[in-house]
């Protein structure tokens, strides 16, 4: 009878499994989990290993002295990184449109006229249709009085553009109501003396005239050629509640495609080049065609080149290698939309631009687990051995999930990569490593919501949302309501919050819960459903995914409250039983490798 412990040093967590060995019989007693200290495969890991072991010992009341052997994993030498580039850009040259949605515009309807600062509208304009420009120095009462007087004089004021948040106030004081757009920050950029059209729709509706090219053509008497020119403009206004279009001689709105460059994929036997702006589908099929991939380069001087170069530099630093030796051996590309400020906008408009997100997987040198082992042995004065390859140990551990049997595949969904392995009926194990996992999901959420805050995006990924509907209650994302005895912080009133460990963390995002939930769920699907299928096709002995019967999901991302169910659902189409692992019937998707390390121990 002796006590051994399997320890799995992962990128994120260090897990251990304490077991009692009695001849052939290995019986697990307890487990421990802590954050990994330092980069995986370095001396810094030892602190974490010690703490993790300590936890396992505590959990079953044993002491360090009783342990006679530590088995650590031979880590898969792969690391991943993520990047994203936009491939379209909306540019307004000379001001021709204001596409923003002030929360309180004034009036309803369409107004067309010549743009003029309110102080410049005079007798000369009697009989002329005029859109008044009202800057922040003009008090709204003065503005309303002036407009009323001008209208009495015979000037046909058909609308107004206002810098401050005064639209309703002005409109309420007008004898004849007009559509008014307010909160136009850069009103000084609005061209003067130009034909201008304003549209404000009812609450709950969207504009229909200015978002239609023929609507603009009607209002401005455009020729067919001119109508063609304003097409991107009307398109950019689709879905707005209010908008302004101004016709200037050279004004234009362009939806420019940024030359994103090419990806050059060198496979063992094939080479392919693919333009990044052709989208993820083409990129992924080129990568599939080149399998197995030796390296992927981006065209130098382009966004694609820059993106992959960045990955390469980070990887070189992390693994302490020369940049030239870093080879990208898998890449996951995903199409997305990201909000970008419109260049030349007058009211801080944003446009949703096309973008491509990539995750890259790099094979590093063999990690120095032997070194870690001897270091550890020295420190603890206990025998330490490198017990087995990570992929094999994970399979052995996963097979302790109730309801599984050989042949079995596992998907280890971590932060940087999705690793898959398979064990055949006769016990042969093979595995592969794919780019793209938890960090990729987090990046997509971060960028699609325009947060610029990885940690916040990580929380949005992991926790459900709620809306603070009053000072005393919230509504969960499933529609259920929860009340509080004490008043909630006014700072979170009417905000969407993340429910993290009993706390409410507000998001500074306008819009509704469903939109954020959708982005969150789509990001998870784009990465893990895609990668799950990619991985299984690659490791299936027949290359046919349908020939796999059981799939167990393990790793940190298998803890997610949605991802395992998405994979269960998508693999069901292929007749596969897939679900979150439950190592030894108690650990959930954690501890597979550590369990494998202790269970695979054989005396002698």
């Amino acid at each position, binding site marked *: 009878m002796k006590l051994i412990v399997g320890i799995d040093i992962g990128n994120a967590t260090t897990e251990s499994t304490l077991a009692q060995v009695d001849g052939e019989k290995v019986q697990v007693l307890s487990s421990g989990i802590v954050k990994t200290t330092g980069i995986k495969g370095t001396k810094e890991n030892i602190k974490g290993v010690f703490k993790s072991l300590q936890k396992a010992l505590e959990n079953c009341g044993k002491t360090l002295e009783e342990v006679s052997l530590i088995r650590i994993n031979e880590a898969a030498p792969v690391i991943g990184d993520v990047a994203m580039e936009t491939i379209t850009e909306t540019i307004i040259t000379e001001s021709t449109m204001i596409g923003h949605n002030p*929360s309180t515009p004034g009036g309803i309807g369409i107004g067309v006229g010549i743009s003029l600062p309110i102080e410049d509208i005079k007798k000369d304009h009697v009989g002329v249709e005029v859109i008044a420009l009202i800057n922040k120095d003009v008090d709204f009462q003065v503005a309303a009085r002036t407009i009323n007087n001008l209208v009495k004089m015979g000037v046909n004021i058909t609308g107004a553009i206002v810098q401050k948040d005064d639209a*309703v106030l002005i409109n309420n004081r007008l004898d004849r109501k007009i559509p008014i757009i307010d909160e136009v920050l850069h009103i000084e950029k609005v061209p003067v003396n130009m034909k201008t059209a304003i549209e404000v729709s009812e609450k709950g509706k969207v504009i229909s005239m200015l978002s239609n090219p023929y609507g603009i053509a009607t209002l401005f008497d455009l020729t067919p050629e001119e109508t063609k020119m304003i097409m991107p403009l009307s398109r950019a206004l689709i879905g707005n509640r209010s908008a302004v279009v101004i016709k200037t001689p050279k004004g234009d709105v362009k939806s420019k495609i940024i030359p994103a460059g090419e990806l050059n994929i060198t496979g063992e036997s094939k080479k392919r080049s693919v333009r990044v702006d052709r989208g993820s589908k083409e990129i992924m099929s080129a990568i599939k065609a080149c399998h197995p991939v030796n390296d992927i380069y981006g065209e130098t001087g382009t966004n694609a080149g820059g993106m992959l170069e960045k990955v390469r530099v980070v990887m070189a630093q992390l693994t302490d290698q020369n940049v030239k030796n870093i080879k990208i051996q898998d890449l996951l590309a995903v199409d997305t939309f990201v909000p970008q400020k419109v260049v030349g906008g007058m009211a801080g408009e944003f446009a949703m631009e096309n973008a491509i997100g990539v995750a890259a997987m790099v094979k590093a040198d063999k990690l120095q687990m032997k070194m870690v082992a001897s270091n550890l042995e020295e420190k603890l004065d206990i025998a330490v051995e490198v017990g087995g390859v990570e992929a094999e140990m994970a399979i052995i551990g996963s097979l302790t999930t109730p309801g599984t049997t050989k042949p079995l595949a596992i998907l280890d969904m971590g932060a940087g990569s999705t690793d898959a392995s398979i064990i055949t009926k006769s016990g042969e194990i093979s595995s592969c490593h794919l780019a793209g996992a938890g960090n990729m999901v987090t990046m997509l959420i971060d960028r699609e919501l325009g947060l610029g805050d990885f940690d916040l995006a990580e929380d949005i990924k992991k926790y459900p949302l709620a809306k603070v509907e009053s*000072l005393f209650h919230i509504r969960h994302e499933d529609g259920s309501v929860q009340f509080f005895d004490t008043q909630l912080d006014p700072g979170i009133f009417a905000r969407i919050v993340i429910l993290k460990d009993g706390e409410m963390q507000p998001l500074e995002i306008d819009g509704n819960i469903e939109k954020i939930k959708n982005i969150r769920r789509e990001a998870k699907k784009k990465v893990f459903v895609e990668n799950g299928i990619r991985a299984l096709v690659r490791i299936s002995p027949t290359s046919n995914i349908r020939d796999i019967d059981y799939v167990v999901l393990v790793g940190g991302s298998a803890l997610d409250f949605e991802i395992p169910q998405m994979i269960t659902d998508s693999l069901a189409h292929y007749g596969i039983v897939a679900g979150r692992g439950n190592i030894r019937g108690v650990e959930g998707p954690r501890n597979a490798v550590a369990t494998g390390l202790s269970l695979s121990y054989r005396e002698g």
Partner: protein
Amino acid sequence: MENIAINIYYSNSLKINGDLEEILFGIEEEGLPWIVTESEEKDSKVLGNIASQSSKLGVGIGIGIDGVTLHHDKLEKYKPLFTFPLSSMKETFRMLGMNGARLIKGEPFVIPKGGK
């Protein structure tokens, strides 16, 4: 029956004009009606409390000799949602009015600087 509105109670030792009028403008721009009532009371918290209790929308504003408050009928009398001194900037009063309306509409507050 009283009308649907944000109720504003103010101390009769004050006049609602100048910067204080901005409170009304803030409510109006957000599209909600208000009703102004004069009172013997001087304390802004008490005024806010009475105002909110009598509002069909449950939201009241108190303008007392000690400052202005935004109050809600479900809050304790001496714990209004926001309190500002009478010496606040014009913009602050406008925002107070806007926030009163937003409390009803369920839209996030514009958090004015200098309040508590």
